């Protein structure tokens, strides 16, 4: 199985094990009644070869955060600040347009939400993949293109006849795998997949999830997977990043997040997973409780938090690194405990 060796452009920065370093990213949406703060200064790292799951309820800003990282936020949205360092030294936010165009797909690729419906219905799979390659690497010979494409299809577990097929001839799971194949065709450092399995049947979902894990292992690519299915997260990711109302409240290794969540919101999220193993009384919760235009001073979760205290009303809890690669933003935990 031959895949492209990593091109030389990306290892001139030393030996950092951080693939992506997001610092204080802010994205606002302009509305006549004031700015909606969709992403309120989030910071996190994605290490090389790591799969980070980004979870939270709808409207919490997960997709917007991902779009911010790719600098794909559409008006009325605007990136208000922050830095997105890719592979150590490249700041996506301050890149010139030309360099940004070059970096997208070759360095950082996206599998958009509902990706399987984003395939061009009038083009064969081979031509869509060819487009991606030639746009970034210039014209290639037919034989080279064919070999690369076939290797790529094999990598995502698709039969070689997919090569000549149109999207309507493929099932949902196959289309999704074509989209994943397209994301990795230029060997990016980081792939962002937005709900890559949400419209698929359970068994097909499992097949696509296996494909993604397999690619991660073989290519060593880092991934961010956006989703809300905590079960799927537990099966797939290395770390879970939990967002609430535009803020990152906890980022933790998956085992810690599932077994001993620290932030009250993460705890609530874990408790509300419907289980297939035991029949338990339903846990009732409210949804988002404040207007995103006017986030309360202090902790973002104060209205729903069972442990709310006086400080939570006035001071925003900073993100504390409780353990290695485990951060939590909550006043319940004090820096001393880490010492």
């Amino acid at each position, binding site marked *: 199985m031959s895949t492209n060796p990593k091109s030389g452009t990306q290892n001139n920065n030393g030996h950092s094990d951080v693939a992506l370093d997001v610092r204080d990213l802010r994205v606002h949406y302009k509305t006549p009644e004031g700015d909606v703060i969709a992403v309120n200064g989030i910071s996190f790292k994605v290490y090389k070869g790591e799969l980070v799951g980004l979870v939270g309820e*709808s409207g919490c800003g997960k997709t917007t955060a991902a779009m911010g990282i790719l600098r794909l936020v559409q008006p009325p949205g605007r990136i208000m600040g922050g830095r997105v360092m890719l592979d150590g030294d490249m700041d996506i936010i301050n890149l010139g347009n030309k360099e940004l165009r070059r970096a997208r797909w070759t360095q950082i690729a996206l599998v958009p939400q509902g990706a399987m419906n984003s395939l061009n219905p009038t083009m064969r799979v081979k031509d869509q993949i060819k487009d991606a390659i030639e746009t970034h690497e210039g014209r290639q010979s037919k034989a080279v293109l064919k070999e690369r494409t076939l290797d790529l299809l094999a990598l995502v577990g698709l039969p070689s006849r997919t090569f000549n097929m149109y999207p309507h001839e493929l099932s*949902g799971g196959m289309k999704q795998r074509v989209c994943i194949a397209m994301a990795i065709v230029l060997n990016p450092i980081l792939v962002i997949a937005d709900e890559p399995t949400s419209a698929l*049947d359970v*068994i097909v979902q499992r097949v696509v999830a296996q494909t993604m894990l397999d690619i991660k292992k073989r290519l060593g690519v880092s991934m961010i997977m956006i989703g809300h299915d905590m079960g799927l997260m537990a099966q797939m990711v290395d770390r879970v990043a939990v967002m609430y109302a535009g803020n990152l409240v906890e980022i933790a290794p998956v085992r810690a997040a599932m077994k001993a969540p620290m932030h009250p919101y993460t705890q609530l999220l874990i408790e509300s*997973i*419907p*289980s297939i193993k035991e029949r338990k009384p*339903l846990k009732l919760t409210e*949804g988002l409780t404040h207007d995103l235009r006017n986030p309360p001073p202090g902790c973002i979760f104060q209205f729903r938090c069972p442990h709310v205290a006086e400080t939570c009303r006035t001071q925003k809890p900073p993100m504390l690194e409780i353990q290695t690669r485990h951060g939590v933003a909550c006043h319940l935990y004090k820096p001393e405990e880490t010492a």
Partner: protein
Amino acid sequence: MTTPLLEITDATKIYGGGFLQGGKKVVALQNFNLTIPADTPKIVTIAGESGSGKSTLANLVLGFTPLTSGKITFTGHDLSKLTKEERGIYRRHVQVVFQDPYAVYNPFYRVGHIYDLIIKNFKLAKSKKEGRELIEEALNVVGMQGDEVLHKYPHQLSGGQRQRMMVARAYLLKPDLIVADEPVSMVDASLRAMILDIMLRLRDDYGISFLYITHDLSTAYQIGDDIYLLYQGSIAESGSTTEVIENPKHPYVQQLIGSIPVPDPDQKWDSEISLPDDELMRSHTDSGCRFYARCTHHWEKCLTTQPLLYQINGSSHQAACYLYADEK
């Protein structure tokens, strides 16, 4: 035995087969049987993957599309033979909650409009005040207050609120049966429990039965009484929800339940699975077991005749697989 609330006998629905489709037939539902008793309200789950026929079943029960063969009776009345007047009564007794709470509202009307329409159409109230009281009661059942929401436009409400209002709308008519077609699949996980809880309360406190159509077995497991698992239009397995999910018998159902991601990193999927090509998967649909291409057991009779539903341990638990043929 009293007349059951809903009885579906040998229901079959075939789409296509006409001149324009080139004679190609799609069997959406085949020989489906289901009973919901009148005396004990139940939440009956119809589960299956996309294309398994679960929405076809909902459309048949709601009378949106006629049966190809078979019979559906509601409190003893055959659905296909209802007069116009009886059909109106049927509409009142059988209500529906659809999947998408974003698509069912007219964005130009305030949300109160959906309730006003029902009250007008079914002549539920003599005066405005009386109508308002009915609405208030229905909203209270789903944990909402009229003053807070009725004057708002749909876009001002969250998905969870909208879906709760749809349940309230169904409840307003005090139906005997609510067909809930994927009511929680577009609602956030944290709000899902609230809607499921409302369904449980409507069953226990108001005696309303549900036909709960879903692809999500974990929510079915939390609230369902009986379950019917469909595979390509036929029942693969049926029985009490706890029994079927805790102890699945049909190879398809075993694979399905084994594929549900468990929210525990220490309980990973046990093995790699792969799916055969789509063409292969559809090629055994005419005769024999529809699951043949994906099954791990390949017997000769699986290819020639479709297995019947066999009883397991003499209980209500049934599976359509030759593995259980001897136990009959």
